[in-house]
């Protein structure tokens, strides 16, 4: 049960992101590197059973790709302009073959010609225009906030041009990830917000086969432009239920691919068929300690540094996540995913080594002193604060407890409170907390990750809701660095600014990164091989979000 929280946390994110469009991607290698499936000899099983869609307890029939409650299989059926690999931010072609910035406010996509919808209608730039205009007309569908950045869109031949209202190069990711709808179907829909799209006309590798409230089956879409790369003929989604039942089903070998937290994956999954059963849990987000920088003592950099040295991050990671994840780098980058952006001058990849002696020395230098084992502030008050973490996130709770134990060695009293998620979220947004556990990052773009937690535009005064800069880091020089990355298309300039942002994270400690939240993925190579792995990270191994579009075109029959 532990860890499930993070699974849920990240799964939830990606699901939201699927509707809203998330980011990032792997090199062009992606689409083309796959060995074409030898689909001529459907020798062994050609069906993949995926354990991912939560039935709660039965499935609602909803395949609207812009609905937050769409079935997960929806993402196997609709393609965006380009697929962005959230592990490293690389792009691969989907309905658009490429994109380029004419200048920092003009972005052009080349739309693929010759592609067809599953009903045989050609996919054209008009479908792209229709989709984006639909998002404009119905802001409820525009979860990615496209029309807050884009001022106009136009098409000429196979080129679709987006004009930005202000320079924002990294925003290309959100546009590229927007799935495209068939205008000949959706233009007839009276209310696309509540439309459930039960007979989807699709562009991607799959279309809907059968649906019943306990299970649905996707079948290969032979008209997909990349159908020749699709080896899995049928994808079956049984309704999942939470907790132990799903783990029993996994142990029984009922899934070929699943995304479950299991306390002992070696015993509960791998050992059942060591030859075929594998797992890969790459980092998908950074779990951090947010400190309210508007309040003492967290507004004091020396105090934050002392806290940072006083936390044994490696032990926190091991205890909270059963040893499945690593201590996070204080650079703020998700490593190793984004290692090409890592400033080589940061010692130990930005990972901070536990050093309570140094922590005590720093506290003493700032005027803190110990009295009867309790740390007193320069004004003589005992140092104590609370950590809030959402109720039910048992792994985060474990992390909070470990933090509390470790800081007690410095004489700091840390209490833990676990409000319901809604209460936690509102405290975080309104700045009514001292410290809190939270996650950020995982977009695949260092800019988007840093922008979320460091941009003053995403902060707000205490008492008003901040979108994501909950710790309230307000720094004109940081904003200037973010602006620099957003407005340049020059990689060297982007890199230099990103290095400086890492420096802000590492030296100024706006948040204390703790450990990486994992993307859970168990898969079997009995029938299919070609899964993403640490050595070939062409996509996160998640059976949700847009990763399946890349994965299902990479899988090939085993043997």
């Amino acid at each position, binding site marked *: 049960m532990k860890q499930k929280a993070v699974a849920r946390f990240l799964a*939830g994110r990606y699901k939201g992101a699927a509707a*809203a469009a998330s980011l990032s991607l792997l090199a062009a290698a992606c689409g083309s590197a796959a060995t074409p499936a030898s689909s001529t000899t459907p020798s062994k099983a050609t069906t993949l059973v995926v354990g991912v869609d939560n039935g709660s307890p*039965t499935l609602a029939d909803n395949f609207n790709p812009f609905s937050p*409650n769409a079935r997960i299989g929806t993402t196997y059926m609709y393609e965006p302009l380009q697929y962005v690999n959230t592990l490293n931010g690389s792009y691969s072609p989907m309905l658009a073959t490429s994109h380029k910035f004419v200048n920092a406010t003009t972005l052009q996509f080349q739309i693929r010609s010759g592609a067809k919808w599953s009903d045989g209608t050609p996919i054209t730039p008009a479908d792209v225009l229709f989709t984006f205009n639909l998002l404009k007309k119905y802001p409820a569908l525009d979860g990615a906030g496209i029309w807050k950045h884009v001022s106009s869109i136009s098409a000429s031949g196979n080129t679709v041009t987006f004009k930005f209202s202000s320079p924002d190069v990294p925003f290309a990711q959100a546009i590229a990830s927007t799935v495209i709808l068939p205008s000949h179907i959706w233009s007839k829909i009276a209310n696309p917000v509540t439309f459930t799209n039960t007979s989807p006309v699709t562009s991607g590798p799959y279309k809907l086969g059968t649906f019943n409230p306990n299970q649905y089956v996707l079948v290969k879409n032979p008209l997909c432009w990349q159908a020749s790369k699709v080896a899995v003929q049928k994808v079956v989604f049984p*309704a999942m239920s939470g907790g132990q039942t799903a783990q*029993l089903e996994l142990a029984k070998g009922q899934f070929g691919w699943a995304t479950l937290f299991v306390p002992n994956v070696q015993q509960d999954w791998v050992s059942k068929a060591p030859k075929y059963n594998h797992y890969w849990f790459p980092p998908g987000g950074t779990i951090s300690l947010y400190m309210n920088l508007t309040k003492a003592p967290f507004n004091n950099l020396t105090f934050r540094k002392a806290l940072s040295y006083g936390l044994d991050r490696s032990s926190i990671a091991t205890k909270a996540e059963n040893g499945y994840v690593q201590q996070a780098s204080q650079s703020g980058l998700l490593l190793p995913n984004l290692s090409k952006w890592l400033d080589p001058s940061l010692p130990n990849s930005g990972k901070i080594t536990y050093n309570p002696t140094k922590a005590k020395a720093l506290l003493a230098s700032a005027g803190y002193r110990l009295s009867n084992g309790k740390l007193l502030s320069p004004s003589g008050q005992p140092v104590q604060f609370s950590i809030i973490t959402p109720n039910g996130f048992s792994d985060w709770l474990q992390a909070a407890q470990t933090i509390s134990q470790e800081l007690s060695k410095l004489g700091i009293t840390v209490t833990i409170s676990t409000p319901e998620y809604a209460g936690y979220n*509102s405290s975080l947004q309104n700045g009514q907390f001292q410290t809190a556990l939270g*996650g950020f990052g995982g977009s695949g773009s260092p800019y988007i990750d840093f922008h979320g937690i460091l941009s003053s535009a995403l902060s707000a005064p205490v008492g008003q809701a901040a979108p*994501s800069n909950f710790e309230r880091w307000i720094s004109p020089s940081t904003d200037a660095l973010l602006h620099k990355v957003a407005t340049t298309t020059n990689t060297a300039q982007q890199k230099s600014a990103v290095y400086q942002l890492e420096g802000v994270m590492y030296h100024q400690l706006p948040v204390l990164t703790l450990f990486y939240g994992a993307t859970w993925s168990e898969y079997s190579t009995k029938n299919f091989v070609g899964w993403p792995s640490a050595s070939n990270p062409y996509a996160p191994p998640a059976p949700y979000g847009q990763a399946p579009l890349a994965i299902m075109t990479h899988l090939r029959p085993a043997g």
Partner: protein
Amino acid sequence: MRYVLRRLPVLVITLWAAVTLNFLLPRLMPGTPAGAAVAKLAGQGSVSASQRRAIEVMLGVPHGSLASQYWQYLKAIAGGNFGISYTYFPEPVSKVIGAALPWTLALVGTVTVMAFVIGTLLGVLAAWKRGSIFDTAASVGCTFMAAFPYFWTALVLLYVFGFVAGWFPIRGGYSASVSPGWDWSFFVSALGHSVLPAFTILVSGLGGWVLGMRNNMMGVLGEDYIVFAEANGLSPRTVALRYAARNALLPGVTAFGMALGLVVGGSLLTEVVFGYPGIGYLLYNAVVNEDYPLMQALFLVITVSVLMANFVVDLIYGLLDPRVRR
């Protein structure tokens, strides 16, 4: 008739209180219902301002003063309109509940009646043969069973008969190969899926009825009129059933009425363990996902059912026991 009329105002006032509490409770929870909906729908990661706006627009998050919201709420429930579920968006709450209700009524309803009938009969028997081996076995066995946490029973049954032995399916209300409908294969599948959950509820519920009935009977058996009936030479059977059991049944009827009302609430933990598509699981999901419209409607349905069941029991009581009519 006067008795019925006397009970009615009480019913109406309790109903109003329940409805009002139901309106207020979610609004007293930390965070706003809107915030919860936004958090839930945007996934549990950080919510961008644009996602938040998109979701608020989508759901039509409630605005206006508390009084006007209350008035809207009363009007809506009078018309049977419970709004749209956040969890199952864009399904209306009434449809979501309508889909789950038959499962719960069939499973929990049947098992509750079975538990009451079997339990009461066993209780009568145990009391009548008090001190016998049967009585000892029933009393000890039932105390033991009733003390068991029933979700634990459920987990053990699921593991042993579902996972290890593989005799029964481990989740769901019916298998994926059939579609709900009035046909034989669906019925067989649904029946097979209901065995383990039904057995769990029966095992956990039976003990209470047996013990309750046995203890009531014991009290009644000590009454003078029983001795008088025996002295008059009535057959033991007649004395046991017509005289003792009938009187001892009264508290049992009250409890049974309550139990029937609560049937609508489903058997939360059993349904969750077995992934059974009933009201209990729905309620669990509503709470976990902070789905206020669904939660409110479910609580309302459950409260109204319990109140109505109590009302009906009150009326039946009047028939069973003439004393209360005065």
